């Protein structure tokens, strides 16, 4: 999770990712951020996030992203 938080802070240093739970709804993340994040996650965790998982529910908070990584890793 710490590694993920580092990646997220690299994208948006001004956001407190431990508290934020509306990254998509509040338009903090746009589509460019999401695909950059997917590439970073693939590089760091060796987990490929498919296009169909790129939905707001999976990217609204650091916790949701972490759950997605874990779920895809198990699958």
């Amino acid at each position, binding site marked *: 999770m710490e590694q993920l938080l580092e990646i997220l802070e690299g994208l948006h240093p001004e956001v407190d990712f431990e508290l934020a739970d509306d990254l998509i709804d509040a338009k903090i993340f746009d589509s*460019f951020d999401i*695909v*950059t994040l*997917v*590439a970073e996650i*693939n590089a760091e965790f060796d987990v490929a*996030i*498919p*296009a*169909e998982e790129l939905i707001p529910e999976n990217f609204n908070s650091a916790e949701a992203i972490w759950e997605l990584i874990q779920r895809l890793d198990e699958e």
Partner: protein
Amino acid sequence: MSFTSINFLVFFGILIILYYALPKKIQWIVLLVASYAFYLFAGLKYLGFILFTTITTYLVTRYMDGRIKAQNEYLKEHKAELSKEDKKAYKKQVKSRNRLWFILTIVVNFGILFFCKACLVDPLHSMTDSGVISFLSVGLPFGISFYMFQSMGYVIDVYRGKAEAENNFFKVALFVSFFPQLVQGPISKWEQLKESLFAPHPFDRRQVAFGLQRMLWGFFKKLVIADRIAVAIGTLKGTEYTGVSFFLLTVFYAVQIYGDFTGGIDIAIGVGETLGVIMPENFIRPYFSKNIAEYWRRWHISLNEWMKSYIFYPITVSGPMLKLALKTRKSLGKFGMRIPVYIGSLLTWLGTGVWHGFNLHFIVWGLMNCFVIVISEELNPLYEKFHQKYSWSNTRGYNVFQILRMFVLMNLIRASDLFNDVGDYFRRMGSLAWQFNFHVLWDGTLMNLGLNAVDYVILIAGIVLMFLVSFFSRDDVSFRVKLQKIPWMVRYLLIFLLLLAVILFGSYGIGYDASNFIYNQF
């Protein structure tokens, strides 16, 4: 059948009566019959196109969904005895079988769309001298760009396991052909539309009234504003209009396309509301955006969402792109991770350009949008620093400046729509740098564009009204909801005046043909 024809009003009147008079459980069948009747008005020759897409959509979604359900059942039954690798391999096998039919359906359907766009029509060659587009002279199957994207979106969602396939062929047929969306969208997703499209709807006075109000507002924007200003646009396209005249053309076109496209969508969504069918919004006050990227999140939302979900994301997160990101990261660092984003953006904007038509100027239009968005995205960190350093950049006055800057920039990019000859467009863009012929604003040129003083007064009043409605909806509460709070007599008076304005000031007779909405050509 155009939304702005007497035929449509008669058609809509009969439909509303039947829809609420007949038993609720057959309402969706009434809609299906009405949609095909509406479609056939465009010509019997187009029927084969929509039927082919409907049948292939139905068959492939049923097939894929059947496989996915059988897979899930099998995995559930054999949960204990299968290892993680076995499950993965089984899923992969099912997916690859589905993929074959999925790709075939997508390729054949989009192949038809591309063929139609490339061979059957060149939309802007059919533009008349008055600037109003005539559909009668061209052969693009009615609504094909809209129903095709809607159908293929559904096919992709089922393939991805994000939507369940519909068993009833006729319900799929209604989803594909639902008539308000055929003219110029919005492009709905299956999951968004299915509930309200097939559900029984008792007569809801408030909802019907809201729908009619929205339709009336759409007619106002289309007939009083867009079709009136179209004449001047036709004139301003003449080769002698450069410099400030060209700038004027870009502003006039911004007004026309806003009135035409948002007006048409207001009518479509309003028709849906009167029938209890809720379609997604296609615009969120786009001219109040502060940059081009934001504008595209608020203009033609359904197409842009489609492009993002089904083209931009799949390209940028595909295996080869992720591998490329890893490689470029080693040599270029953080910047390297963005390479897939740039490639994805470029291909998505090329796709959006081609969706509008197989013409060089649409491709140039797409590339200009892509270029501006990517540059501004990359400059974001600089903007952040700028806003932190200079407090005046966070004031309302600076916000207004950003909105005006976006408006002008978008107008200049959008004007490429108007010129088949890309060289001519750039020549006129260039004239902005050296030709300061401001005198056209007062030397009588404006009176020679096909509009008289009364037209200008009506246009200015109409534009002010559009601005006010948009401005007072800035808190995301619909203007109609606000209208409900004022005394009913004043409300009815306002609605009556709007109706009167449409009847008295609507541009009847100018390009008044079967389907003259600009986006109906795409």
